[in-house]
């Protein structure tokens, strides 16, 4: 929920009941005023009638009783004195065909020892009409005020929060790989300025850490591979010597093989480290089935040498958005793994199954039975026995790349069949 929406919601929760209470109070207040007004008017009428009674004593008998519906003067039955009694009542009006509210004054009057009962009535219709007009006007004004306030609030908020949204925009597109720094706009508002400086500080730190890590990896690379180059180069020069024995050649080959392996391990570890540090920029749509075929093609010498038969089966294609170099490494590692662990005269299957909601690429090879726990297959330095040439990092790299691009990789073994499933 947006802050503004939340603001309005809270506002509505508080303001609406308040508005209703005020409206009801206002209504009763108005009602009280007009009732008082009517009562006063009735009292004035009563005073007038009483004064008339004093003056025109004789006529009274004739005019008695019904002067009209609104003035009823009757001779009292007894001499009980009743003081002014006000009440509101509904009386049917035949012309309008509806009940109409009236205010009534009932009392007894004694004039020259004669007792009368006086009932005075006043229609409240007009008073009510005025009251409702006032109420309506009040309501309309309140709603207009609230609406105006809301619109104003919206406009103001938009301009007030714009630095915040600008910061968020810049942050969401920021990656530490990008060479340029994060430049946040200056804001007049203290809170946003605080946010910006804090974020800027953090991004600076991330940027520096990223740079340091990157530099570190480059330096390790240089500092390790250069001495290995020296070792290899020296071996190559020694090999040119004319006085070497068979044993010498064997020793030199051992050194050469070990240094080559060391260089490969370092390279793989650094790749893993770069993956963890997110040092791979850029991505494009990569089609995996074709990529697998391409890598099997590249390896046809090895396949031929082991007399491995390939079986491809595909319905459709397997596209995924990712860094093309990492896709290449991923596929190359899986293909190499399958060939390396395949038995002579064995078979390798590559099957692509495309469903509406997911694609599955299965790479299976016939190999030796294994006691390795399938779950630990992707752990670093986990390798099958009798595989001195494998570094044990290849599948960890595969796993790491898959994690990075939300691909699912699983391994299962059934007898002599080893199967890797790549899913998206």
């Amino acid at each position: 929920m947006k802050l503004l929406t939340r603001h309005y919601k809270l506002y509505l929760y508080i303001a609406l009941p308040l508005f209703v209470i005020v409206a009801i109070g206002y209504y009763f207040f108005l009602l009280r005023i007009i009732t008082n007004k009517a009562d006063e008017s009735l009292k004035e009428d009563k005073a007038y009638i009483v004064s008339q009674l004093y003056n025109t004593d004789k006529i009274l008998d004739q005019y008695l009783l019904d002067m009209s519906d609104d003035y009823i003067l009757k001779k009292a039955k007894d001499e009980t004195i009743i003081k002014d009694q006000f009440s509101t009542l509904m009386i049917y009006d035949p012309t309008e065909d509806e009940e109409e509210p009236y205010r009534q004054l009932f009392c007894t009057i004694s004039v020259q020892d004669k007792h009368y009962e006086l009932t005075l009535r006043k229609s409240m219709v007009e008073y009510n009409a005025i009251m409702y007009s006032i109420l309506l006007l009040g309501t309309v004004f309140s709603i207009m005020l609230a609406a105006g306030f809301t619109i104003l609030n919206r406009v103001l908020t938009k301009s007030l929060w714009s630095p915040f949204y600008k910061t968020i925009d810049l942050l969401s597109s920021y990656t530490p790989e990008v060479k340029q720094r994060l430049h946040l706009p200056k804001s007049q508002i203290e809170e946003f300025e605080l946010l910006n400086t804090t974020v800027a500080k953090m991004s600076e730190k991330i940027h520096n850490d990223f740079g340091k890590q990157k530099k570190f990896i480059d330096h390790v690379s240089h500092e390790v591979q250069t001495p290995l180059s020296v070792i290899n180069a020296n071996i190559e020069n020694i090999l040119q010597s004319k006085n070497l024995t068979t044993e010498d050649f064997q020793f030199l080959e051992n050194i050469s093989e070990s240094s080559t392996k060391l260089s490969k391990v370092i390279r793989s570890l650094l790749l893993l480290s770069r993956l963890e540090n997110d040092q791979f920029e850029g991505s494009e749509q990569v089609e995996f089935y074709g990529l697998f075929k391409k890598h099997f093609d590249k390896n046809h010498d090895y396949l031929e040498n082991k007399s491995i038969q390939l079986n491809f089966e595909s319905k459709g294609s397997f596209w995924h958005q990712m860094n093309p170099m990492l896709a290449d490494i991923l596929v190359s590692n899986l293909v190499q793994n399958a060939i390396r662990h395949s038995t002579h005269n064995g078979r390798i299957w590559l099957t692509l199954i495309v469903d509406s909601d997911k694609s599955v690429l299965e790479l299976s090879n016939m190999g030796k039975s294994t006691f390795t726990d399938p779950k630990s297959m992707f752990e670093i330095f986990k390798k099958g026995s009798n595989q001195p040439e494998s570094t044990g990092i290849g599948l960890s790299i595969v796993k790491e790349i898959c994690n990075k691009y939300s691909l699912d990789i699983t391994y299962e073994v059934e007898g002599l069949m080893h199967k890797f499933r790549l899913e998206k």
Partner: protein
Amino acid sequence: MRLLLVEDETKLLRSILEYLKDEDYIIDTAHTYHDAVDQITLHTYDCVVVDLMLGDPMGDGFDIIKTLKLYKSECGIIIISAKNSLEDKVTGLEIGSDDYLTKPFHLAELKARIRSLLRRRMHHGFDHVEYGGIKLIVDKKEVFLNGERHNFSSMQFDLLMFFIANKEKVVTKTSIADHLWPDEYSYGSYDFLYTHIKNLRKKLQAGQCDYLENIYGVGYKFEVK
């Protein structure tokens, strides 16, 4: 032919010099950015081999290449770098380098690349290699053994080129395998290599040009006896 080697590791530099001593190249060396720039301003080179990371705050390998381009040098440029980074390869090609070699490399490979680069720059189109009765027409991938044309597969042609580039030297199986197949593949077995070499040997024997000698299972030597 005049070459410049820029590399901050003296031991590596010395090994490269030793390996290349049989070729009639004049080779200058530089350890720092400053040295390299001095040499560039003084001499005209046919080929410059430059390490990207020099540990020199004044400038790295890229800066040297930029300086070369500034002097409108037409020399071939080979980058050697400890980083197997696509980014660096692309940057290198963009600013005008011709080749990129990742450390640790085989001296045999470096030599083959230098030769190939120099050859490409010398002959424009009529590029050929000759050794002991063998003649290779590089751009057409044609092989003549004692004047007679023989059919070689692309792989056999590359293999032969590599041997001739490193003629009279022991080349290891690893360096041959790494030359023929992308280095990310390693199977620890050279059976497939033996097959290719056996086939190459058969063809060479057919033209009476088999100069290939097996060296104690470590590698091979291509030499006219």
